[in-house]
């Protein structure tokens, strides 16, 4: 396949793959009679052009950082967690139950408890496929896919039939008490209309924590050994069953950050389908970020900007829908994940020649 230098593997290849995805999308816009330059400009201005836009960008990026970390940490253990979507959804239930039932507590207690509730529910929902893989040998990819649908069915049932306030027609929970909310970031100069909130800080802390855990602890070392080779892990005496369940739980807890950002930070109630695909975007974010927390944060920022820019784009350039951002996401997964071997040999040749 050809080896490329480390810096190229970590920085150049992701950027090239992103450019490829963007170029392909631009071609598509051009082919359908649109103006790719106008579209790209609208994307950039719409995502970064104002404090308000940036506030939205960071808000979306927060969700993606959490799901990106969730997917990345499982990847480090050799597990492909496609279930971040369902785990985040279930985490929403944990957050909601804590917020609604412990509403009498002061914010300083209620918010951490609601976060813990979300993390616990997300972790539990992810630990089941982990347990099934570890103890029953079920393929984690298929079970997490199935668990997404199970989560959706369960949550629809709970929200529509049990959580909706009596007499209300809208399928959503009653509003959370005042205390159950994460403060916005007005102090940092974001307008109060921007939904970015303290969950952003949590996401950055989570990334730091994941880095320390995976690269600076014996447990993380063991996780990476397992990810590289189960045979080596069993030689090294690593209890892989336990490891799989634990890392899936951690992954699910991280995915639960979406519920914290969305429900405690912005919506203040449980809504049907509030996860709106962030779990799948997390796959793109993790792949693009090379499954490393720093890379995940950068990739989340990028995809957050694309999402926000895409929403603006739909207003600015009527022929180009916001779904084009979904297309870009898909292409990034395709190029970085599945077609990763396409550019590498050529790049290795070019860099090898340049290097000497």
């Amino acid at each position, binding site marked *: 396949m050809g080896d490329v230098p480390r810096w190229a593997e970590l920085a150049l290849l992701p950027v090239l793959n992103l450019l490829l995805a963007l170029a392909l999308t631009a071609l598509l816009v051009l082919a359908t009679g649109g103006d790719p330059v106008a579209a790209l400009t609208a994307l950039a201005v719409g995502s970064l052009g104002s404090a308000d836009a940036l506030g939205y960008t960071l808000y979306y990026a927060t969700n993606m950082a959490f799901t990106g970390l969730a997917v990345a940490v499982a990847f480090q253990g050799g597990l492909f967690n496609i279930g971040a979507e369902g785990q985040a959804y279930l985490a929403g239930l944990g957050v909601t139950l804590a917020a609604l039932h412990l509403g009498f507590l002061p914010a300083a207690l209620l918010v951490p408890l609601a976060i813990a509730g979300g993390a616990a529910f997300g972790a539990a929902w992810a630990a089941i496929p982990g347990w099934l893989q570890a103890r029953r040998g079920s393929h984690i990819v298929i079970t997490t896919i199935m668990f997404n649908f199970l989560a959706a069915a369960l949550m629809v049932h709970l929200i529509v039939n049990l959580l909706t306030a009596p007499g209300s027609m809208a399928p959503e929970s009653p509003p959370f008490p005042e205390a159950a909310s994460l403060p916005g970031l007005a102090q940092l100069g974001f307008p109060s209309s921007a939904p970015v909130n303290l969950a952003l800080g949590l996401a950055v802390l989570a990334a730091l924590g994941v880095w*320390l855990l995976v*690269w*600076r*602890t*014996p447990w*993380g*070392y*063991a996780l*990476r*050994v397992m990810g*590289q*080779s189960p*045979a*080596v892990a*069993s*030689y*090294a*005496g*690593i*209890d892989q069953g336990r490891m799989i369940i634990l890392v899936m739980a951690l992954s699910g807890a991280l995915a639960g950050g979406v519920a914290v950002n969305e429900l405690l930070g912005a919506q203040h109630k449980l809504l049907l389908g509030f996860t709106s695909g962030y779990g799948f975007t997390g796959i793109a974010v993790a792949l693009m970020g090379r499954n490393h927390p720093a890379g995940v944060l950068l990739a989340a920022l990028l995809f957050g900007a694309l999402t926000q820019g895409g929403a603006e784009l739909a207003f600015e350039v009527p022929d180009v829908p916001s779904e084009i951002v979904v297309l870009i996401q898909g292409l990034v997964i395709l190029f970085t994940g599945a077609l990763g071997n396409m550019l590498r040999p050529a790049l290795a040749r070019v860099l090898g020649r340049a290097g000497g």
Partner: protein
Amino acid sequence: MGKAEGMAPPAIALRGIEKRFGAVHANRAVDLTVRRGTIHGIIGENGAGKSTLMAILHGFYQADAGSILVNGREVAIRDSRDAIRLGIEMVHQHFMLVERFTVLENVMLGAEGGPLLARGAAKARAELARLGEAFGLRVDPDARIENLPVGAQQRVEILKALYRGAELLILDEPTGVLTPQEADDLFRVLRALRAQGRTVLLITHKLREIMAITDRVSVMRAGRMVAHRETAATSVAELGELMIGRRLAAPAPRPAPKPGPVLLEARNLSVRDAAGVERVKGVDLALRGGEILGIAGVAGNGQGELLEALAGMRRPSAGEIRLGGQTVFPGRDFNPAALRRQRLGHVPEDRLRSGLLRNASAAETAILGYQDDPSWRRFGLLAPAAVAAHAARLMRDYDVRPADPALRSALFSGGNQQKLILAREIDRDPQVLLVGQPTRGVDIGGIDAIHQRLLACRAAGKAVLLVSVELDEIMALADRILVMFDGRIMGELAAAEADEQRLGLLMAGVAPERAA
């Protein structure tokens, strides 16, 4: 036989075959002539380039340079299809059989005789019966491969080759997985093939087989063809010398063992493999400090599973294991990590698959299994600098080259990888050291260094269990030798009384005659 040379063109002639895999020069200017209607042996150590050469002949790889002549005519073999058309068939070391298919389906694959299976199947069935009759290769055509014993699977491979019209049959280490009886059956089949004018190329690293069945033999070493001999005009000693490239040194005189207390003991130990097949059947052994106990045997007779069980990687199905006088199995804390804490070192049989982290740095490989050791932690966290310093010291002390802890483990040569693993395990000062195939794929210089290390462990009073399929290695190092056959210990020999013949009988499952 008996035909004058030069009358008929050779079945196969290779001229100047070259093949490189990256930095590895697998075949260098290889010439080979194989006469029709003979059994021709190719012998060489693991990694000498035999299998690569045969893969080129069978179209699995393409040569970088050189030419191939079949029946005197130059041919291009671009893929297996070309080879098959030329009547060149190969029985691989790892069988190319679809386990869930029947014998018939496997034989038909690629030679179905038409777009619909029904018509070809009747023909194939008849042909299989005929071939089975002619060569003594009887197999039930409707049996599923996964339900057949290994020997029968190999017969299917040969049938497959014959069904497709093999004129030249290549067999790659065919007896590695066979019992001696099955090997005898195989040799009978090969002789029948020769009698019918077909040509057989036998690749092996076992001198005994070469002497027993071949007409001519070619020797490979380090990618080159170094000699060709008529089998009748050569000897085991000469071939061994040619294969290794120097006279087989008599085992260096060693100080007499000073056996200490029993440090590792297994009683009536039975072990099943992943498929549930019992591979180790009631083994007893006791290993003392200050001695090297060798376990000899044909590969696949349970040595691997025994080693894994003693290392805690595989739970025995019955029996007891005592380490340093304490029962560790049956016991709750029976796993490799716990045994390591009780000072058990383990150099695994298959270092590439399980002993090192191919894609991680040498530094990370250097703490594999000991990642929980607090000495490479600062403030509770793993400190890369401390890990790298530890690795650098190991690499210096054990002469691992290049001594670069940041280099990816996969990029070291086999010998240096093995030295790194030995360094990691010995540096922990184990009381018991389990060692599997320590010099597989290691160059000559590396072999010496590794042997010296193991002898040093013995001198330091450690108990060393050495599992190896290389008899020379066992005889050079072990104080006592246990021979395993079909999951059982067939017998024990002291180093002084061990010779190839006695070991060979035991390895073949022939129990020693007990003099009253």
